[in-house]
């Protein structure tokens, strides 16, 4: 592969070098969290985490473990930078986003360190494209302080079951209301729009429900505009876990299989729109 003919000496200067035979394994998962221009990249020896935030109420993270990459070399414990995600996606898809069988774009991503651009080497069919994307100082991602100890309700659903509901969501509703309860209606999505109120119920013994662990009846509302982007992650995933904690904060975790069948994760955190209502 032409990209790997870069000399060993060149690599010494990079704080991070990550290579993939198929750039789609990175670009597809990044598309699931592209709702804002800027993304924070945090690389550790475990892999890459990409964070996008919206108005301090929503955070999306994509995790790509080191094993997903053909090569993942990092010189420090944490390498962080911020880039324009839209520009990055245009570069990753420079040879066209088409899925021609057999043709894939190879990627080599290099970052020298603070103040340097993110350099991408992309190759397809013998043609090489070099991209240098300017980086900024990474902002500190918000810590939503979501921990398993404070989780009141948790369900794991097959994504199939939610895809239809999410694609039909009444966008004239300002909020998406989620009700989770050990008793009826168990798991309910509700909207209140111009066409009226709509409810999607998922019974706890449904075959779509892989796990049902609800301890307390909770109803929380979340701004529709904040959650709508999560539909992209849902579309890519095969399973999703929905959790709420004592404060009514929402955690959505998506299990995504890439082109090669490897597993990556995407998670969304969202603050509730109103005070937690308890029945």
């Amino acid at each position: 592969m032409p990209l790997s003919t870069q000399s060993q000496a060149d690599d010494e200067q990079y704080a991070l070098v990550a290579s993939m035979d198929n750039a789609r394994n990175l670009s597809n998962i990044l598309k699931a969290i592209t709702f804002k221009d800027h993304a924070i990249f945090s690389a550790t020896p475990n892999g890459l985490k990409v964070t996008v935030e919206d108005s301090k109420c929503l955070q999306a993270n994509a995790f790509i473990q080191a094993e997903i990459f053909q090569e993942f070399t990092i010189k420090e414990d944490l390498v962080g930078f911020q880039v324009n995600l839209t520009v990055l996606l245009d570069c990753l898809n420079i040879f066209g986003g088409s899925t021609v069988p057999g043709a894939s774009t190879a990627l080599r991503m290099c970052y020298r360190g603070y103040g340097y651009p993110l350099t991408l080497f992309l190759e397809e069919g013998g043609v090489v494209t070099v991209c240098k994307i300017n980086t900024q100082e990474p902002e500190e991602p918000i810590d939503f302080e979501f921990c398993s100890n404070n989780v009141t309700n948790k369900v794991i659903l097959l994504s199939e079951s939610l895809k239809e509901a999410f694609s039909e969501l009444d966008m004239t509703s300002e909020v998406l209301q989620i009700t989770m309860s050990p008793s009826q209606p168990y798991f309910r999505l509700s909207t209140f729009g111009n066409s009226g109120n709509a409810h999607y119920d998922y019974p706890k013994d449904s075959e779509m429900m892989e796990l049902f662990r609800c301890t307390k009846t909770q109803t929380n509302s979340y701004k529709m505009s904040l959650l709508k982007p999560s539909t992209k992650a849902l579309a890519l995933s095969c399973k999703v876990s929905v959790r709420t904690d004592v404060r009514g904060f929402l955690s959505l975790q998506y299990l995504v299989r890439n082109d090669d069948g490897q597993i990556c994760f995407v998670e969304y955190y969202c603050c509730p729109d109103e005070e937690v209502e308890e029945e």
Partner: protein
Amino acid sequence: MKFRGKIVDVACLNHFTRVITTVSRLTKTCVLRLTPDNLLFVLSGKVADGGVSMWCELSQANFFDEYQMEGVSSEDNEICLEVTPENLSRALKTVQNAKAVKVKLTKKHCPCLTIAAELPTLSSVSRVVTHDVPVDVIPRRLWHEFKEPSMPDFDVSVYLPPLKTMKNVVDRMKNLSNFLVMEANLSGEMNLKIETDLVSVTTHFKDLGNPPLRALEALVLDLVCLSSSSSLASTDLPPLPPGDDASQDGGPSQSRDPEAMAQARVDIRKLQQFLMGQQVNPSKAMCNIVHERVVHLILLHEDVSLQYFIPAVA
């Protein structure tokens, strides 16, 4: 002025339609010159267009079964019309399965190119379809504006990479920048580059090959011969690039460093427009670059040649 032509071969009709569709993607309006031997679609670079020029030449004998033309006068045996190629393309698309298609210059409420065909139907009675496409006749005194462009005194000539790959890359680059630099050298390398505050992207094409000078000479002579029957043919042969006597097998001037890049910065939309229009893979595709002046793209099919000139911007 008289013109009538008939196309009977379905492959010819198909190809003819595709060429006109390609032209329609490059420009909204253009000039159609009808000569005894050729049809020429011409766009003369005007400042309003950002100065792009186009010259698309079809040898009539390769398309028409019957072709009769009487020009403005016996000395000026040509007809010059201003047309909207999209209208022609749309009309031709509706008659693709006709046994024969007739194209005539007519005068209805205004001058028109009338496209008429008999289409088969399920019953024994054929359906007759007629399209009257309005055109404007261009007066003789303006004909000098639509002369064949001369081959520029280029610095580098190179074969283009696969147009599809170029299109994919240029499409993405357009999201990132309004301008693109095209550069190439005599070692068969071409780069497409964009640079903005946010990002710089360079795509490297290698092993493209450079057309030998003799091929270009032949091309120039071909084009001149094709239009020599017309009174508007350039009477002077375009100047050949310097140093052509230097090499035996026609390589360009030995004095130019083969690695040195000739470049031109162009409006990316113009290049994208050119690439979007290509429906058929050409038998030869090449590019001449005059350093910081103009990019001259040439596509050759068996019976059609298309030249497109994109001026460089500062």
